[in-house]
């Protein structure tokens, strides 16, 4: 994946004399010490990272850690004190006023926490706000607004007023307004925080669905960890204006950079972080390839290695079934062509690769055998045993 946005040494100091604060930061003073000395606030310090094309990049951190300031520097609603922001290689911080406006109209749009819809405009007019500002003709505007509303499932409400809609619906309009400009980058500042938990999950799923359909580069601010894990391809954790860790949810959960990050994930439901494929063990069980090995030989090998169960795959590596010492022994005397089928254990359920750990957990608990994990095309990926599961939960807890 290519980098869409590259952020290099980005700083924001709020206050009259930012140079002084920058110098103190260089000396290694903390945000609080600098505030005490200079009465200036460090909003963001030395942020350097890249956001990849088409990913959902979540920024997390406690209140006041600089999340909003960071995203607002990406479209220069807040002017950076120092540093660069490269969008497809072009430095946004050096853009003239006209170039900046052009960039906002075509390259980046934004979704807000409390929706920021215009009460005097209809849903369709709100949706086409960005297009109106760009000077696009009314008919074309309406066409594109309706298309965006279609995407978020609100086309029937095109002529309603925002105050006739529920919170979730209002934010769908907010989302549609951002989609209507067809900007490749979406900035979302706690976009779902004002919604009820149920609606919030619904909107998160909606965003994930949207991404599968047509991937935008999304920069999403959140302080809800479950949300970050649900929608984020990668997560950046901020503390006191600095970014302390960036990584996939799994990386951060299993390997937190410091206590702050760890405390963030304390008590997280890891069973929601991992997918079945991520903990499936290839080496966990013996694997027999069906055309190569016959039932009698398989039985002998199992006995030989002192194992009880094994997985059977076909020549293309596709999962066929599981066998045990007993089932193999019972099938040795079957007629040649049904021998393997008779040997398969009955009632074994497989887990699809993207199944949440929490669901795998219940499969494992219900079965006396490990649970095989299978790719969408049927390829065998490995198994999840009780032991593996316990290890994973223990490592992250």
């Amino acid at each position: 994946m290519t980098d869409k946005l590259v952020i290099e040494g980005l700083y924001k100091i709020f206050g009259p004399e930012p140079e002084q604060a920058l110098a103190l930061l260089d000396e290694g003073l903390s945000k609080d010490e600098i505030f005490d000395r200079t009465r200036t606030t460090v909003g963001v310090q030395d942020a350097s990272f890249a956001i990849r094309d088409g990913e959902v990049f979540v920024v997390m951190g406690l209140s006041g850690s600089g999340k909003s300031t960071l995203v607002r520097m990406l479209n220069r609603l807040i002017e950076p004190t120092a540093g660069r922001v490269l969008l497809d290689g072009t430095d946004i911080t050096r853009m003239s006023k006209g170039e900046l406006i052009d960039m906002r109209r075509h390259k980046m749009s934004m979704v807000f926490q409390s929706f920021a819809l215009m009460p005097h405009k209809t849903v369709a007019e709100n949706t086409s706000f960005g297009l109106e500002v760009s000077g696009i003709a009314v008919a074309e505007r309406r066409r594109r607004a309706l298309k965006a509303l279609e995407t978020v499932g609100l086309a029937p409400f095109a002529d309603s007023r925002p105050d006739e809609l529920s919170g979730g619906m209002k934010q769908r309009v907010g989302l549609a307004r951002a989609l209507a400009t067809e900007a490749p980058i979406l900035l979302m500042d706690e976009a779902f925080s004002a919604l009820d938990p149920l609606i919030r999950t619904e909107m998160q799923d909606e965003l994930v669905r949207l991404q599968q359909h047509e991937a935008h580069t999304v920069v999403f601010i959140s302080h809800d960890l479950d949300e970050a894990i649900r929608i984020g391809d990668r997560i950046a954790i901020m503390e006191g204006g600095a970014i302390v860790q960036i990584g996939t949810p799994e990386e951060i959960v299993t390997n937190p950079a410091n206590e702050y990050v760890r405390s963030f994930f304390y008590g997280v439901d890891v069973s929601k972080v991992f997918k079945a494929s991520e903990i499936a063990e290839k080496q966990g069980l013996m694997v027999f390839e069906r055309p190569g090995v016959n039932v009698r030989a398989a039985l002998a090998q199992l006995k030989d290695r002192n194992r009880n169960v094994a997985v059977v795959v076909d020549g293309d590596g596709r999962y066929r079934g599981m066998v045990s010492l007993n089932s193999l022994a019972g099938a040795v005397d079957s007629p040649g062509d049904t021998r393997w089928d008779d040997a398969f254990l009955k009632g074994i359920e497989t887990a699809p690769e993207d199944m949440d750990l929490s669901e795998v957990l219940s499969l494992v608990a219900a079965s006396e055998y490990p649970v095989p994990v299978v790719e969408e095309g049927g390829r065998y990926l490995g198994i999840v045993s009780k032991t593996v599961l316990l290890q994973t939960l223990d490592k992250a807890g």
Partner: protein
Amino acid sequence: MASEFSITDFHIPIGEWVSAAVDWIQDNFTGVLDGISDAIKFIVDNFEDGLLGIPPVLLALIIILIAAWRVSWRFGIFAFVSMALIFGMGIWDETISTLALVIGSSVLALVIGIPIGIAMARKDMVEAVVRPVLDFMQTMPPFVYLIPAAIFFGLGKVPGAIATLVFAMPPAVRLTNLGIRQVSEEHVEAGRAFGCTDRQLLLKVQLPLAMPSIMAGVNQTIMLALSMVVIASMIGAGGLGNTVLTGIQRLDVGLGFEGGLGVVLLAILLDRITQSVGTRKPGVSLRMRLKKVLGKG
């Protein structure tokens, strides 16, 4: 020597200074003063001629209909009764003359005041300068405005309109400023994030969202204008104020009362009708209502 000094000899010639200043302005700015005077006279006269040109019954009907449509049918009845009383007391021409002066000076006050309010909202510097001036203007008793107006513009409708527009302007300025500043940070950010120029931000985001506050300012300006126009009859602005004044001078209680009642009725009508502008009718817009009717039929 000291014993000969008494406090009554202590004299600062402020009056003379002011007279000198006024003379100087009158000598050097005759053109400007005449220009202002002509412009205002043109506007006010046109309003009055226009309103008096409409047949009284038709105008009354229009007012009643507006009252019924914008406010409520009950208020429409009130408007009907008011019109009947005004005709009955024989003060129609005076009422219309007052109304014209109120509308004319209010329009001028708004045309000047709203842009000042916008400038105040956009630049803290402007607010810092204008705010004390507004405070000062609002602490002065209304009839103080009559003196400079009469000095520079003589007697009649023009100085009346000028005193009125100055007196009535502060709420429009204040509430425009306030309304724009009260627009939520997120709305302004949304405007900017979608690529508004400064002008678009003002026209498409700030002014529409500030509209309820601005309309409250318009309402207050009109009400202040009405009270001032009545007072301005002291410098010959005419209208209902003149009726009241004549009543007082002749100790004619009945005439004074009739003039007063006319002012009150006009005040209520203006207040309710201007309040209803800018607030959308609860429920549905006209377009939606039409849709519904057509859909059913």
